[in-house]
């Protein structure tokens, strides 16, 4: 007997602390909703929900724990009911065979322990209206025949699976097709331009007059013109071309390019020199 009582005490304490935690987080969530609703972000709401759900889970675990005695086997009856305001709110509770006195602060929510509030606070069944509704539903369910019920179940299942299919289809489309047409993440023309630039300096400043097209591509005529035709890259060529007449080029190279004279325009230089490539033999 002594042991059982101790166990009951311990599990009640555990339950109380769990409920207190839950109450605290509910309180802070409500406070957040009421006072910070203007700058509340959805992730933080989700966090609060996750916290509550976790605490409810722990509470359930405590209730289902094998060492927790079955609370439903305990009976609680009010011993004293008084219409007077009770500052300390002394509640006398008899639990089955033992009498237990508990002084509980209700934080100002229950000022009196009277006939009016006791049915609400010690209620173990749903509200009468809810009970009424439930009864209504039960009778409705009983009225329908087994065949009709089966049919309704089937149609509901069908609707659900249809809906699921639609949703997943939508997801697939938005993931596969929806992303790319709306927002291009890469441009094949840019890829080509960049690859050409690192491979043989196409579009980069060529300090040499020969318009050298790079390794292993001797005498590629009109490298410059091809480039100038590439969309969006004209300015590349324009800017790069004038610097070709920089003093970097030596006289030897000039001679090799076969264009020793002064060039009228940078672009022209490039095209001409490319067609008279020094490596073309």
């Amino acid at each position: 007997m002594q042991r059982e009582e101790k166990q009951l005490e311990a599990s009640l304490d555990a339950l109380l602390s769990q409920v207190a935690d839950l109450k605290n987080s509910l309180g802070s969530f409500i406070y957040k909703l009421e006072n910070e609703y203007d700058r509340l972000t959805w992730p933080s709401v989700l966090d609060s929900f996750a916290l509550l759900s976790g605490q409810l889970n722990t509470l359930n675990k405590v209730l289902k724990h094998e060492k927790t005695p079955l609370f439903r086997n305990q009976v609680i009856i009010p011993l004293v009911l008084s219409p007077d305001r009770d500052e300390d709110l002394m509640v006398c509770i008899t639990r089955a065979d033992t009498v237990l006195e508990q002084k509980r602060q209700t934080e100002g929510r229950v000022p009196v322990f009277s006939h009016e509030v006791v049915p609400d606070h010690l209620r173990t069944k749903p509200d009468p209206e809810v009970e009424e509704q439930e009864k209504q539903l039960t009778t409705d369910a009983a009225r329908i025949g087994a065949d009709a019920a089966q049919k309704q179940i089937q149609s509901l299942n069908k609707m659900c699976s249809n809906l699921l299919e639609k949703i997943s289809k939508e997801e697939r489309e938005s993931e596969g097709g929806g992303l790319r047409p709306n927002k291009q993440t890469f441009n094949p023309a840019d890829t080509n331009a960049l690859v050409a630039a690192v491979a043989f300096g196409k579009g980069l400043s060529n300090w040499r007059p020969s318009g050298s097209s790079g390794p292993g591509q001797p005498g590629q005529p009109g490298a410059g013109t091809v480039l100038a035709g590439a969309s969006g890259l004209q300015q590349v060529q324009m800017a790069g071309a004038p610097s070709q007449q920089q003093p970097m080029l030596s006289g030897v190279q000039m001679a090799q390019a076969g264009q020793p004279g002064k060039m009228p325009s940078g672009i022209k230089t490039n095209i001409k020199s490319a067609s008279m490539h020094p490596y073309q033999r």
Partner: protein
Amino acid sequence: MEAPPVTMMPVTGGTINMMEYLLQGSVLDHSLESLIHRLRGLCDNMEPETFLDHEMVFLLKGQQASPFVLRARRSMDRTGAPWHLRYLGQPEMGDKNRHALVRNCVDIATSENLTDFLMEMGFRMDHEFVAKGHLFRKGIMKIVVYKIFRILVPGNTDSTEALSLSYLVELSVVAPAGQDMVSDDMRNFAEQLKPLVHLEKIDPKRLM
């Protein structure tokens, strides 16, 4: 000028017969952030690495039809780092069974007077650019995402101009010749970057 001191033949023998397997693609500026996020998720867990390099490409003309090309690269944001001299062979597209471009490659770290040395040997600078971007690794795979900048005044890396509105994305592995299996891993990795970036084997000759 005599024939170039190094032939165009792949360097064989010893331990330096390395091949670079390469896949290339690009990403537009506004999608760079998403790509970086995805790469950080996919790649080895390491501190995000950035680089700012100046690459100069040198040519040596010989009797052969095509000039000999060497690439010299120096870090602009890490003082004291060695220069990097690189030889790249002719890219081979290969068949459908190989999923990456393959080219011979020789990498050497050098001192900073590399350019003078090359000039003395008869090399002439063909072009130069600045590369700025991010570096990721996954095992032996290297992923670089970088922007290419044109240099407006020769030799002055302070005044540069972006070449395009995209970042170049390169997935590369340097492995001994004949290790074509690595291209399978590269293909699998490239699949995971779709549809953000399409990494492909791009034949540069096609872009001439």
